[in-house]
């Protein structure tokens, strides 16, 4: 590691992969999934208390933050899906994933992480989103939910027509459909890699600048810590935003043919003329 900064020291602690800390019945538990459980329990308690204590006139406190975040996600869904009815319908899942990712990222910046506590020379805690397995699971669940919502909205046959649209005798339809299915896999990995790399590299940057600062580490690492607070919420927003975009693409006019579209257009134009 001293190749990067040839100061002759051991270099900053850099971890790209999680490390196992203990075993439960033959299953190795890594530090990231362990911290993920802690965050999940914390989040369940927070959201449960917020759901009880939420009121028309909130008295402030963390309940208001939860309400603001929920309203933010509902607004985002409304802009993408078109109506508030649909937005409220899909809000529970997207709000949950937004709060989980944001809270994982933000709690991942606490100073108890990293080399503060170690088990068998491995860090005891690691943010859940700084582990490719964790973000891959999150994006897999998100895209599976998108497929589930789309099938529930338009039925399995019409949803498949979304991929294989056009004349079914034409072989080009199948090539385009397979390409569309391949694009889903690309989406899965791009969602997972984006979240993982942003958070993991944020950790590395903080650790590198704390190392370079030596005795002045709090001063040199602080701007990057502040940057990471912004990145933490921004990445949660981007994850939800992209998932919502995929959902809106999957459920929007999935089977409207050109002919029907023209009919609708003529109909709306006529009604506008009548209104005048």
């Amino acid at each position, binding site marked *: 590691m001293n*190749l*990067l900064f040839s100061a002759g020291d051991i270099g900053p602690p*850099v971890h*790209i992969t999680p490390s196992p800390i203990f075993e439960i019945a033959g299953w190795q538990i890594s530090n990231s999934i362990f911290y993920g459980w802690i965050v999940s329990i914390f989040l369940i308690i927070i959201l449960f208390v917020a759901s009880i204590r939420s009121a028309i006139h909130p008295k402030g406190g963390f309940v208001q933050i939860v309400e603001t975040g929920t309203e933010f996600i509902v607004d985002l869904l409304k802009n993408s899906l078109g109506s508030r009815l649909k937005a409220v319908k899909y809000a529970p899942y997207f709000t949950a994933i937004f709060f989980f990712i944001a809270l994982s990222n933000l709690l991942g910046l606490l100073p108890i992480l990293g080399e503060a506590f170690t088990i068998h020379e491995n860090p005891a805690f690691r943010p859940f989103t700084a582990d490719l397995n964790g973000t891959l699971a999150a994006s897999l669940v998100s895209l599976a939910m998108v497929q589930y919502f789309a099938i529930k909205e338009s039925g399995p046959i019409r949803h498949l027509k979304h991929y294989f649209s056009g004349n079914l005798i034409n072989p080009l339809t199948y090539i385009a459909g397979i390409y569309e299915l391949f694009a889903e896999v690309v989406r899965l990995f*791009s969602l997972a*890699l*984006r979240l993982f*790399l*942003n958070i*993991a*590299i944020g950790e*590395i940057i903080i650790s590198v600048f704390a190392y370079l600062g030596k005795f002045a580490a709090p001063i040199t690492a602080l701007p990057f810590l502040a940057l990471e607070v912004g990145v933490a919420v*921004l*990445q949660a*927003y*981007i994850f939800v*935003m*992209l998932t919502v975009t995929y959902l809106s693409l999957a459920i929007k006019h999935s089977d409207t043919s050109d002919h029907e579209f023209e009919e609708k257009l003529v109909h709306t134009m006529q009604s506008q003329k009548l209104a005048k």
Partner: protein
Amino acid sequence: MIYLAELTGNVEVIGKGLMLGAGMIGPGIGVGLIGNAFMNAVGRNPESAKFLGQIMVFVAIVELMALLVFASLFIIK
């Protein structure tokens, strides 16, 4: 075996430096183009400043490439 030219010394540093330098060109241009388009749009129509959130999404999409390069710095041996 006779080599035409042989590189001695710390080749790893050269390789990593070349990778980081060459890999950051594309994302740099990409983020610059996004910022250029956004500022142009805001200059023409100040109402479009509300699309900053969407701009952040596109910056994140481009940024992924730069992050891949930066991560491979620590992964490759």
